[in-house]
């Protein structure tokens, strides 16, 4: 009894000081977060800090010497880096709009269908993600194969081309071949998000507009599009970050070739660190990429949040 009344009193006094932060709560909270914080500190924060730190060093298997900003200066006269940076930005500018618009189109068409049709389409568009890059690439490599591949076969049968095209070895086509595969393996998540977001829209607004005689484009432009703006922002930012980090597809399909024409920064970081063992130099590329991604994300955030109405 006495204990109970004392706890009651404690509770009452706590609710009286609701605004003040309890010391005990703080300790308890950090204990609950301890595992997460330890993993995060060890495997994210610490590597980030050492990555930045060692980017100021000439650092290889047998050398560790402070060279200031030299790595960064070298980057911009390194033709492979400049090429990779250009490819990466090109990939982002070409693939992200395709991915976002395609996902939006698919979602608008299927979100009001019955739940079976919706799940079916959602599942199909997610299939390449689930199947895994490695398995998907096995098939695309065959599709693009100049001699035994089905793409050239079909195009030649149809009379569209006369000689075999080296899809992955010709620098005019290789980047587009990669964009093709990238799009099929990237739209799964945006579609899931868009369908959920469109489903959450207030149906009565849409009906009211339709009764007032708005056509479906007007309804989309003035009601649905503003309503899903927060999702668009998220999808654009996430897709951009993922595309900037495109690696597996490149490594598996072209290994950056021909002559680094499909190399991305991500691929070059890997190449520099694990084939040429220039660790400090590789880290400086990573830092530059992080900065570029930061700038892009910030710009997108600024641009789209101006259009978001909460």
């Amino acid at each position: 009894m006495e204990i109970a009344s004392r706890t009651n009193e404690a509770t009452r006094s706590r609710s009286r000081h609701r605004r003040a932060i309890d010391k005990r709560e703080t300790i308890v909270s950090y204990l609950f977060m301890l595992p997460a914080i330890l993993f995060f500190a060890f495997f994210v924060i610490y590597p980030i800090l050492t990555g930045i730190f060692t980017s100021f060093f000439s650092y290889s298997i047998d050398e560790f010497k402070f060279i200031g900003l030299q790595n960064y200066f070298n980057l911009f006269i390194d033709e492979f880096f400049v090429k990779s940076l250009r490819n990466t930005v090109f990939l982002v500018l070409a693939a992200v709009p395709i991915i976002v618009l395609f996902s939006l189109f698919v979602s608008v068409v299927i979100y009001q269908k019955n739940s079976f049709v919706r799940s079916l389409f959602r599942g199909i568009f997610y299939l390449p993600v689930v199947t895994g890059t490695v398995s998907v690439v096995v098939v695309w490599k065959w599709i693009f194969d100049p001699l035994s591949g089905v793409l050239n076969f079909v195009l030649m049968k149809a009379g569209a081309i006369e000689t075999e095209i080296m899809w992955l070895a010709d620098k005019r086509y290789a980047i587009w071949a990669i964009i093709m595969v990238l799009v099929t393996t990237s739209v799964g998540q945006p579609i899931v998000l868009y369908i959920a977001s469109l489903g959450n829209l207030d149906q009565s607004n849409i009906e009211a507009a339709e009764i007032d005689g708005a056509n479906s484009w007007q309804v989309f432009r003035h009601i649905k599009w503003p309503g899903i703006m927060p999702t668009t922002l998220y999808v654009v930012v996430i897709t951009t970050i993922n595309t900037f980090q495109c690696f597996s597809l490149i490594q598996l399909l072209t290994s950056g070739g021909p002559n680094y024409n499909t190399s991305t920064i991500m691929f070059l970081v890997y190449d520099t660190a694990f084939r040429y063992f220039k660790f400090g130099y590789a880290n400086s590329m990573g830092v530059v990429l992080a900065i570029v991604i930061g700038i892009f994300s910030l710009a997108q955030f600024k641009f789209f949040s101006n259009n978001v109405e909460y």
Partner: protein
Amino acid sequence: MGQKKTLGLFDLSSMTVLTLITLIFIFPFYWVVTGSFKTDLQSQQLPPIWWPTQPTLGSYVALFKNPVLAWFGNSFMISLVTMALVCIVSSMAGYVLAKKRFHGKAIVFTMLVSAMALPKQVVLVPLVQLVGSLGFKDTLWAVILPAVGWPFGVFLMKQFSETLPGELLEAAKIDGCTEMDTFVRIVLPIVKPGVAALAIFTFISSWNDYFLQLIMLTSRNKLTLQLGIATMQAEFSSNYGQLMAGATIAAIPIVLIFLLFQKSFTQGITMGAVKG
């Protein structure tokens, strides 16, 4: 009236276009599975053999000359342990971040969120070296531990935990529940759908996390299915049959898991982004 008609026409034509496009998305999976029952020659034949009329298990026999079972086991262990750790760590942290008031909360949360936007390449080299100095190089832990450090799960579980009713937690405290009791007996049962979604999401993404596996695992018996197939492809790119058999074994379990749990899975990736 006229309007309804154009709407119907748009709908019909776009459904047709969509259905055609889905073929591109289904094809790789279809081709891998059917291709695994063809001979190497058949799978490279032109015009393509769309359906294996004389199915053979030859590719599987050839494939199993590699340590495929070990690769399968490695993939499975990595995904399972990562999943378990991520769920425990994230549900604990997500709960307090959503429901408790404490000093430094805003700082902790901001750090977690901004880290998610950082490219993993910045940490590539240091991560490999860190794992090496911990003595985990070329072990399954080298792939598991960094994946647990990634804060996406914490973020997701925080979103889920926001829905916990504050009065219930308050009542538990008054009844004399310890903090751990409250978490295990009240919080966990309520956020269970969130944990399920996170579990499936984590399992699938660690199964397919080719990048981390590539930089961490080297010796032949320590490879995963993904890595094993990629290695085979680099070594003998024309053994299509074997590659497809490998790709089938890598894809089937995960596609089944996805189909079984599609609902929780979609809920999981939606939760992190879309406000209800």
